[in-house]
């Protein structure tokens, strides 16, 4: 369960404050794999980054006793000039992984980069980078994984693998996911939060959420 208490978030612009959320109170229930649905600019990514602690609300607090991953986007925290292995160790250190060598092995096995794992990330193809990013996060045992369009980039076999990994962990872990690809959301999620005009609505059933979202 993640509790949003009285959240106000705005961005500065030449036209004054652009409010994304105003005095928002909401409870994101635990035990669900949640898809976040909303139009462009509705604040999906902002909500995501707030939950992850990458950004802070201007007012209000976010309370949770779960361990939450960083927002796993296409290449978060991946340095172009460092190798896959070095990037893995960097992410492992920041997140306080106890055994870096075992973590490295786990990421290597999952990402299936072969010898590319020891080459600089700038030499990777566009499909390989998100695979590394996703592997780095799934190899750490979080309670909630925040996934931002990453799985849509990989090929079919990687997607299957990602799904299997998340499914194996589904006893203890859940995902919150942002994507515009409904097929992908149907694969990973069972419920939905629809974002519109600064309000959140939770739907227990994903299809119902998608219906409401498409009716907006």
């Amino acid at each position, binding site marked *: 369960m993640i509790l949003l208490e009285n959240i106000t978030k705005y*961005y*500065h612009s030449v036209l004054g404050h652009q409010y994304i959320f105003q005095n928002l109170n909401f409870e994101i229930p635990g035990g669900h794999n949640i898809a976040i649905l909303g139009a462009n600019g509705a604040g999906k990514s902002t909500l995501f*980054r707030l939950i*992850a*602690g*990458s*950004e*802070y609300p*201007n007012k209000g607090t976010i309370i949770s006793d779960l*361990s939450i991953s*960083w*927002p796993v*986007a296409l290449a*978060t*925290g991946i*340095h172009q*000039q*460092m190798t896959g292995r*070095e990037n893995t160790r*960097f*992410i492992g*250190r*920041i*997140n*306080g*992984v*106890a*055994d870096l060598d*075992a*973590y490295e092995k*786990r990421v290597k096995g999952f990402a299936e980069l072969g010898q590319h794992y020891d080459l600089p990330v700038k030499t990777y193809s566009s499909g390989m980078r998100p695979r590394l990013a996703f592997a780095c996060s799934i*190899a*750490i*045992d979080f309670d909630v994984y925040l996934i931002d369009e990453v799985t849509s980039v990989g090929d079919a076999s990687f997607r299957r693998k990602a799904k299997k990994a998340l499914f194996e962990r589904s006893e203890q872990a859940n995902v919150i996911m942002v994507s515009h690809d409904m097929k992908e959301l149907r694969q990973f999620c069972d419920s939905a939060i629809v974002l519109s005009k600064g309000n959140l609505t939770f739907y227990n059933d994903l299809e119902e959420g998608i219906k409401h979202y498409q009716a907006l």
Partner: protein
Amino acid sequence: MTTVLKRNKWEIWRDVIFALFAREIRVGFNDKFGISWAVVQPVVFIFVLAFIRGRLDSGETHTIPTFIFIAFGMILIQSFLQTLSAGASAIKKNRALFAFRQVQPLSAVIAAGMFEFIVKLFVVMGIALILYFIGMEMKLADPLSIILYFVSLWLFALSVGLLFGLAALYIPEVEKVQTLMTRPMFFISGVFFSLKDFPEEYWYLLNWNPILHAIELARFSAYPSYGLDGVSVSYLLISTLVALFLALVCYQGFWKQAISR
């Protein structure tokens, strides 16, 4: 299974700064030309300036060999300028990493400062090696004080850098102002001359500058015969403390909003 350690706040800071520092070293030493340039450039500068200054006063400047006189000025001013710009650009450069909630802008600034510190140690060692090979004798009467001045100046530079880095997130033009403001520091901080070269009634034009204090103090600590005129340790230390305090206060007040701009 990957076990994640339960860490307290300090352990997280330590791990993050270490990870960022390792990353700085990894990426910094990738650029082999840049790193060797960091050592070669001040040496070349010292030689050229010492040569010019040596023409004026026959190899000895206020009882210090001219080469060493210039070397002190050069190393300290470059430490200041480069630590400042590294600290100021660290926040913007590492922006993508703030997605990890453990990484705060301050840890990026500290890691960048540590990297500059290491590079400067290499520069000092390079210059010491050159002095040894050309057989120039060098006195270090009070090395502990010199280290204190060096560290104090480093901390001062990093604090000013943090202020600039924070301000640049709100007003992008600050970066331009920063280069504009730091450029003349090279000329007014006593790299090429000593405060003693000027008549005393004009000292007030120069001695507001803590870098000048650090440079003159370091020269005095190496060669006590150089004499201590118009500069003071307490001025340097108090400037550092004030800058550090101001930087940390502004940081504490603004960082959360600054990274989401």
